[in-house]
């Protein structure tokens, strides 16, 4: 490690710095968002879901992987364990979806000075995360309730509740606490925060140094993004058409449900595989670093 490496590669310690930074900051913010009360308007909850701008900003400025994982760890430790609200394995799903979403958002930005790009990435990040967690919630009910289709109206309710929650989180939390602050912070911090950590800023208009371990991920993220976009379309459509089959049309209802559930399962599986691959890649990469 004694020689200065070219391009945007980081030393082990720099990665750790990004990790610790992201963990502490997002963890702290999470503590506050847990404590800020929410305004409940019927099933719609106006709440400060999270300060997504912190991991988003850091993912855009630094290496997105370490910032994203750091933030997810921070949430788990500060927001859950310390407040005595740790949900155990349930948090694992949050961890995965959240770091995936933040990572993708970070990867979308190639020029931190470009507000447009930053904004689009920020809102996409939130949308991905919210979509994934909604999907997971639906799967949970699907697994948890025996013979889901036998219960009248349950499927529709779940889809509606999750759909409303999704929209609310993206439009309220997403705009106020992800989009706007990120657009404000990223260009301001760019070039300023990096020297404090002893590293060079990302070069503008630089795609990541697509080393051997990065490119497959890029592809997979792309596929997943496309899949998610498609899924969102399909699901919302089917959600509304489900509403139309309100009367005992159990047949078509069931058919629809199978489609929805298969789609969700596919997405979840996709996510799991990505994570696996990324983990393995990181391990390899770290091992390489240590050897170096």
């Amino acid at each position, binding site marked *: 490690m004694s020689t200065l490496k070219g391009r945007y590669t980081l030393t082990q310690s720099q990665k750790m710095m990004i*990790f610790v930074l992201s963990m502490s900051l997002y963890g702290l913010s999470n503590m506050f968002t847990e404590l*800020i009360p929410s305004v409940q308007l019927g099933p719609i909850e106006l709440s400060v879901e999270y300060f997504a701008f912190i991991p988003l900003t850091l993912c855009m400025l630094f290496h997105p992987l370490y910032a994203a994982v750091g933030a997810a760890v921070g949430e788990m430790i500060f927001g859950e364990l310390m407040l*005595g609200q740790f949900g155990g394995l349930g948090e694992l799903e949050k961890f995965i979806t959240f770091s995936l979403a933040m990572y993708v958002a970070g990867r979308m930005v190639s020029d931190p000075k470009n507000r447009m790009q930053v904004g689009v990435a920020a809102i996409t990040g939130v949308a991905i995360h919210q979509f994934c967690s909604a999907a997971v919630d639906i799967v949970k009910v699907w*697994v948890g309730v025996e013979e889901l289709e036998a*219960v009248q*109206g349950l499927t529709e*309710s779940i889809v509606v509740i999750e759909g409303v929650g999704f929209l609310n989180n993206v439009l309220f939390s997403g705009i106020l606490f992800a989009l706007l602050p990120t657009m404000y912070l990223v260009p301001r911090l760019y070039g300023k925060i990096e020297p404090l950590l002893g590293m060079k800023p990302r070069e503008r208009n630089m795609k990541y140094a697509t080393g051997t371990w990065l490119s497959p991920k890029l592809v997979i993220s792309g596929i997943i993004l496309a899949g998610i976009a498609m899924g969102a379309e399909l699901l919302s459509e089917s959600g509304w058409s489900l509403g139309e089959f309100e009367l005992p049309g159990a047949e078509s209802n069931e058919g629809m449900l199978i489609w929805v559930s298969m789609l969700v399962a596919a997405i979840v599986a996709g996510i799991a595989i990505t994570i696996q691959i990324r983990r393995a890649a990181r391990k390899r990469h770290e091992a390489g670093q240590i050897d170096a």
Partner: protein
Amino acid sequence: MEAVKRALNRISVEQIKLELLGNAYNSSSTFLGRLDPRTLLVWYIFFAIVPWFVYNRTVLLGMFAIMVVTTILSRVSPYILFILCLGLISQVGWLFLLSLFFGGGIESLLPMLTLTLKLSVISLASITVFSSLDPERLSDGLSSLGVPDVFAFSLSYGYRILPTLLEEFHQILLSFRLRGQRPLRHGLIYWRTATYYLRIIVLVFYPLMLNTAKRSRTTIEALETRGFTYGLNNPKVKKLKLAYLKMKISDWCFLSGSTVYIALLFWFGNQYPNLLY
């Protein structure tokens, strides 16, 4: 919004510090708190996964009963239990109301009750276990079960750095407030005041990010001089660190007791699957 104000008042450095850290490190006095962390974690994993796939209401009820017992044993704070109940009720409640709207009937309540039962078992299991483990033992337990050491370290580092971060956050927030101007009128349902506070809470993170960046740099540098990376790559260190973890008789009793209970429960549940409804 009075609530916002109150919440902000609660974000007094002292208060949070004491509440959180006090709670976190006060657990070793309970029965469960004295068990080996690995016992608790293994026990937990069972109760976090299995209920999802059990549809036998008798078995679920039996699991719920044992959870109630362990919850009492671990002396969980009533506040947390209250939050938990509220969450469960509102979630399932809305689901039920909406399903009525979509043409469901009272009969859809029963499957949902089952769901509630499952969720309660799982939540209670996590509350019991994680409130019985102080962060040190939790991180050691996790690391002995193969969770990456960096995570285990971050966990206890979080507890180290939290007071410092809170302090700094508080000071910067104070700077904003001392030099800022609160809206003169509260506005409809306090929206002006609420917006003002939320805005500065977000703004605080700009200086905080920069200051924390500086701090992280020294910390990581110090970790290097303190042999952290050296230890990370040395399995001997991990063994040394975890040497104090010992499965005692009480651990085995607890585990075997639970196993016997669950086995009996499944047997019993198969005999009388519809004991409840």
